[in-house]
């Protein structure tokens, strides 16, 4: 199964593009790849919750509702060259950028060869050196500065890397966001900052988080374009991402993209969202689910048919089953290794390039 854009492009070559694909400058196969990535992410994510309820994974934080935006926005990045600086909801972003379902599941089970942290961090703190996906921490918005620094180094070194970083609209009120975007604006750094605005920071609604309706309105204050995009519209996100990536790569500077998304689950497995969101609101959030929407769009455009759909569904089921079973079967971290990697000089981490996880 081709789970990534670059693979897909290589495989499909110059296949004839349908109308929809042509309109956005992609091939049908690429559209199918996007769809498969979104569906795969959803399936992986749903599996996390099942594992959580089964008592196998004590904590889940998920990206349900955000997947369309993440796949669309990251689709144009160059894997193995560009950088992704994600946050805890970035399941689809990291899958789009090269991580595998197995690697995600290793993090859920906190296994020793988990490339994100070797089981040291909570699930949701993705990272992978071999994919240029920076290790995620918990304090929000700190990564905006890391992304800016990575972009600065790329500029100094004369490499045409583009850095994409993501955070929530709540996190975007942190000082680090301001300091980072200001610096990116001054030096016109190749960094694309994505605010995934799902209307809540845990329980706190956006009106109590942010003084303005659109976080993107702040972009002007940093001398960069601010783009609001419907996160349930995968192709709109793709276009916005592509343009921002193009600008960054061409040396035209940073972009702030705000994707309006919906959080389909509680904040995490520790949260009861019915306490602060009404039933109607929760129901209306479902209408903004990118997965069925994209599915209909592709079906209406004749890109996706029953056969594709069932093939993809079967491949995804197999991939998620495989990832779950395989990851669960891996050994837990050995406490004898717990003191390693505080400073340089310890033996290389077993997960660093673990082929089995690929």
């Amino acid at each position, binding site marked *: 199964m081709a789970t990534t854009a670059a693979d897909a492009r290589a495989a499909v070559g110059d296949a004839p593009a349908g109308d929809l694909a042509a309109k956005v400058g992609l091939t049908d196969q690429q559209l199918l790849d996007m769809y498969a990535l979104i569906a795969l992410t959803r399936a992986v994510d749903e599996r996390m919750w099942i594992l959580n309820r089964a008592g196998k994974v004590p904590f889940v934080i998920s990206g349900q509702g955000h997947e369309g935006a993440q796949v669309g926005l990251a689709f144009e990045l160059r894997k193995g060259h560009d950088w992704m600086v994600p946050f805890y909801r970035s399941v689809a972003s990291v899958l789009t950028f090269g991580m595998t379902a197995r690697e995600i599941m290793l993090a859920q089970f906190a296994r020793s060869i988990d490339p994100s942290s070797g089981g040291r961090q909570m699930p949701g703190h993705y990272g992978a050196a071999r994919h240029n996906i920076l290790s995620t921490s918990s304090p929000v918005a700190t990564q905006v500065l890391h992304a800016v620094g990575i972009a600065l180094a790329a500029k100094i070194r004369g490499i045409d890397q583009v850095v994409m970083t993501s955070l929530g609209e709540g996190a975007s009120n942190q000082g680090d966001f301001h300091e980072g975007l200001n610096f990116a604006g001054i030096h016109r750094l190749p960094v694309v900052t994505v605010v995934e605005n799902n209307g809540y920071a845990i329980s*706190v609604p956006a009106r109590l988080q942010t003084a303005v309706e659109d976080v993107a309105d702040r972009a002007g204050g940093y001398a960069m374009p601010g783009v609001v995009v419907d996160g349930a519209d995968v192709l709109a996100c793709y276009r916005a991402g592509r343009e921002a990536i193009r600008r960054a790569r061409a040396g035209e500077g940073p972009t702030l993209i705000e994707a309006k998304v919906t959080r389909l689950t509680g904040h995490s497995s520790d949260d009861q969202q019915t306490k602060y969101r009404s039933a109607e609101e929760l129901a209306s959030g479902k209408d903004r689910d990118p997965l069925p929407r994209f599915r209909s769009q592709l079906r209406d455009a004749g890109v996706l048919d029953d056969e594709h759909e069932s093939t993809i569904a079967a491949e995804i089921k197999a991939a998620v089953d495989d990832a779950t079973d395989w990851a669960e079967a891996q050994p837990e971290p050995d406490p004898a290794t717990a003191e390693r990697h505080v400073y340089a000089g310890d033996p290389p981490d077993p997960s660093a390039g673990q082929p089995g996880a690929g």
Partner: protein
Amino acid sequence: MPVRTYIEAIRETLREEMRRDASVIVLGEDVGKKGGVFLATDGLYDEFGEGRVIDTPLTESLIIGASIGVSVNGLRPVPEIQFADFIFPAFNQIVSEAARMRYRSNGTFSCPMTIRAPFGGGVHGALYHSQSVEAFFTHVPGLKVVVPSTPYDARGLLRSSIRDDDPVLFFEHKKLYRSVRGEVPDSDYSVPLGRANITRPGTQVTIVAYGLMAHYALEAAELVEADGISAEVIDVRTLRPLDTETLLDSVKKTGKAVIVYEDNRFGGYGAEIAALLAEEAFDYLDGPVTRVAGPEVPGVPYSHGLEDWFMVDPDRIAEAVRRLAAY
């Protein structure tokens, strides 16, 4: 006497203080409708409304910085930092501003506020939801630092903190929230800041601890009793200002001290206690001041096995006590 959990004691004390004194307000992330991620402020929003129970943006520096302004202008804020691990964005506001306002203004401005923050490991929270951060603040003149370990003390110390005229950091151990229950009188008692508590008298070794470790120290004292060792346990409760008298009296009596803290050892809070005892009780010491503390890694790892490896437990404490008793 009513029996309450640790978190119930905190919640009820917040409510009572807000009823008693209209100048007390609560602010922080998710403290409103949700009632806080641990439900420490549950019900306050319904009773006192959004004017006095304020859901802030996800911005810790603002939470503390605004609390400074609020306190300067006549109110008594009780800001909540959702996890102690996330107090660092507010470090500058706490250490450079709140702690120094009184001193730098030569006593003409002050910041009466109580910063509540859940801390500590053993809850499967990994590097960023398990930390002990007290050592960063106990070093700072101008701040007070409180760590209750029982529902009784949680209530009595929270009362004293809210009524205190200086900035207080009030660290609540997450693992105690629901696991510890105890008698808590309905009366308006308070536990004064700056007084340690001898929670178990003994004669041969003094165990000094706080937070979760205050419980583990008691368990360790039980364990060594089987070996015929009489351990005295002191719950420090207020880390700054420290009750040096109670500590010194105990160690002068027992001649031996084990200091327990959950945080990594090097430069942790227990280092100060050890240094103090080594300097001021030297003539009474019959064995080395011994520390039992966390390992030198940057945080509590997530995986169960790694977390167990990290955490100090009653057995490790008991082992140190036995070794020292036999010295």
